């Protein structure tokens, strides 16, 4: 009886993982199909590796420019997101000042604000500061909207950083900056990885913000390019479309697979303890 239950459980788990994995595998396989193969049932394997889909995708969807822009914006943003939210989280959780609780609530409130509420005011603001249509403008917006979540996760980490360690460091003559750099940062590495990964995924995958604040082709972001490519040829050139989608998810997928252990531990630690 127990054995049967175990078997059913194992079967369910495997089925679940197949559901998670299969669409992605199917997507990758489809990116190698010839146009003619799309008329056949969808579950068929590709007949060969039709790499041309990728060369079409690279030249027609201007993947080069899209990747470059998205890389610049995402990488710059995540560095600042981490730096600004780590310092703030450290100050709020570990240092002693009157308004720390208020500051904590003030910034975490940002997590609850849907992006589209801010769209028009942010647009007007960027325009006034002449940051509209520039990568710098996008970076500023991404940093400011990513801070609340990162800040919140990091406070979860710092809260469980034993005060004794800090005390010992101070005894040894460390000032507060050294405490932060030598102790808080190394001991919250999982948190940093998690914050970086979450911000990376959010920024890399964003459509709404990058679509609204940048209109020139030279500064276009990947998801916007992907959406218009799908719009443009999605229903006639499925091969190149799937190839473009695959290319677009490779960086997040790669980063995730490299960092995955740390992320999962970090995400859980930050959320659970926080």
């Amino acid at each position: 009886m127990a054995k049967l239950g175990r078997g059913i459980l194992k079967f369910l788990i495997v089925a679940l993982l197949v559901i998670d994995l299969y669409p992605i595998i199917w997507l990758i396989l489809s990116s190698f199909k010839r146009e003619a193969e799309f008329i056949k049932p969808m579950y068929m394997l590709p007949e060969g590796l039709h790499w041309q889909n990728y060369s079409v995708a690279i030249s027609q969807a201007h993947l080069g420019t899209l990747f470059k822009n998205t890389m610049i914006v995402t990488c710059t943003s995540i560095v600042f997101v981490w730096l600004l939210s780590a310092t703030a989280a450290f100050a709020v959780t570990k240092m002693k000042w009157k308004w720390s609780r208020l500051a904590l609530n003030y910034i975490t409130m940002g997590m609850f604000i849907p992006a589209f509420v801010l769209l028009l005011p942010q647009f007007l603001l960027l325009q006034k500061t002449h940051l509209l249509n520039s990568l710098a403008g996008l970076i500023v917006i991404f940093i400011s909207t990513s801070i609340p979540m990162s800040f919140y996760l990091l406070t979860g980490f710092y809260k469980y950083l034993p005060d004794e360690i800090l005390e010992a460091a101070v005894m040894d003559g460390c000032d507060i900056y050294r405490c932060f750099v030598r102790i808080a940062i190394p001991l919250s590495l999982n948190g940093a990885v998690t914050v970086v990964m979450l911000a990376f995924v959010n920024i890399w995958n964003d459509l709404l913000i990058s679509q609204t604040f940048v209109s020139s082709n030279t500064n276009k972001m990947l998801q916007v390019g992907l959406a218009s490519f799908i719009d443009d040829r999605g229903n006639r050139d499925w091969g190149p479309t799937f190839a473009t989608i695959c290319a677009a998810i490779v960086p997040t997928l790669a980063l995730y697979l490299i960092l995955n252990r740390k992320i999962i531990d970090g995400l859980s630690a930050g959320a659970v303890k926080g």
Partner: protein
Amino acid sequence: MERVLRDKKAILLFMLPAMLVYTIFVFFPMCQSVYFTFFEGTPNVDFEFVGLENYAKLFHDVDFKESFLITMQYFLVTGGGWVILGLVVALMLQYGMKRFSNLSRTIAYLPVVIPGVAAAALFSKVLEVTPTYGLVNSLLDALGLEQFIRGWTGDSATAMWMVCLVDLWKGIGYYTVIFYAGLVNVPTELEEAARIDGAGRLTVIWKIVLPLLKPVTVMCVVLAIMNSLKVYDMPVVLTDGGPGRTTTVLSIYMYKTAFTKWQYGYGSTIAVVLLLLILVLTQAVMRFERKSEK
């Protein structure tokens, strides 16, 4: 020690950059949005002060009511699904698959990192009926279940369910991982003690594991409320709010009202109502937790 931790200059240096950026680009814009709710028209062009008229309008706006109910459906099905299925999957991974637990978690989290645009494009192909059968319909066809073949995302009876399902697929992993971490922290001695007393596995989970998971559960519920009420990407790219208005959630209704119907003030009002809803629900859940802790 105290002196170091009370270093005003350091606090200022640590807090200021984040506070500044956040205040200028998130907090002020939010206040401005609230301010806009008392106006009608287009900012900088023909903005007119109307007082509370926009709020009064909400009460007899049939479309708002419809979108509100759709959002609630989404909240219950997808938001609820994330939490409940996330928990179930985490339990299954913890108790059913010791050997490959790391690999399984990696796979379970995989859909989370896929961009919404890509996921929607992927699933519109998976659910396609015309011009060629997508994955689902061709499987139904192969299994001889022709009567179930349909345009899943274009049929008002199924479109909303499809949006919910695709977002469930994409989101469960996130909650699974959080629950899983909570499970790892449950001390094994407690479980073992209970089992020695003759309790079955399900009883152990029900009586011991779940109560210990409460803080994690609250965390997940808060995240699910937030993410499901402010959903925008998935229904936009998968169905664009259609067919009819069957998948027009509040955020889409807000966006269309503000930007295509030239009612910026009213659009902001809808957004502010949504924001209030999120705040009230999440605060209620957190209050509830704090109270029961005492």
